[in-house]
């Protein structure tokens, strides 16, 4: 979040007294107010959850295996054949 971004919304969070104290202490030790202390961690976590929800990035050797699966797809297994030959659910 940019320093100049207008803060036009409020959030209320419920917690325990001791947790609030701990966060306050840690915030003042690092020279920040509670908001600037708490929000960046929450933002980082939110971004990671959103990105995991939408995509997966493969590492080098995993990409080679993935390419094989895409260009040379295996024949259906017995279990898959059986599944697809079984009765379908009635849909409305």
């Amino acid at each position, binding site marked *: 979040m940019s320093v100049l971004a207008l803060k036009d919304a409020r959030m209320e969070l419920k917690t325990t007294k001791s947790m609030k104290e701990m966060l306050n202490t840690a915030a003042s030790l690092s020279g920040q107010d509670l908001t600037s202390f708490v929000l960046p961690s929450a933002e980082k976590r939110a971004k990671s959850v959103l990105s995991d929800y939408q*995509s997966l990035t493969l590492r080098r050797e995993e990409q080679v295996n993935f390419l094989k699966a895409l260009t040379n797809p295996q024949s259906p297994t017995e279990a898959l054949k059986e599944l697809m030959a079984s009765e379908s659910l009635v849909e409305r």
Partner: protein
Amino acid sequence: MSDNSRIILELYNPGKTYNNQKKFDCENAIINKFVASSLKKQVRGELSCAFVLLDTNDNGRFVGFYTLSSFSIKAPMLTALSKGSLPSDIPCSRLIMLGVDINYKRRGLGKQLMKSVIQKTIAAADQIGIYGLYLDADEDAYTFYDNLGFITLQEKKGTKPTPMFLSIETMRELNQA
């Protein structure tokens, strides 16, 4: 196997109240909590779509469900490796969650839901061109998906679920019927 003829599948409507949705119990605490308090929000927010299994013999009781979303597998080297025939972001459908109520276990409903997931994926591929089905398999479901031919995209690390993929070509081969 019990009679499943009164069990029907329908597209989940977040505006509708389903009998027993809040008490749905598939023996997985995370999924139960999701069904009770997040399913409606997630579908309303268009983060996923859901299909639900209802028992028409018991006032349309909510007895099972699955959620699907769009997903992409990012493989930056793929375009070069395939000499330009593949994009580096591979669009897929993603099976997020699937569950059947404990009172309706051992009737093959979980498998029937899985068949439906594959059929929906094939239908989506016919419309918008996706390359397959992606899911994160929990340890106890890994063998089931492995037997169906899903490949492991990333080796398992610790307690995290395993990312798995089934190619659309493999699914299509069986859908001529």
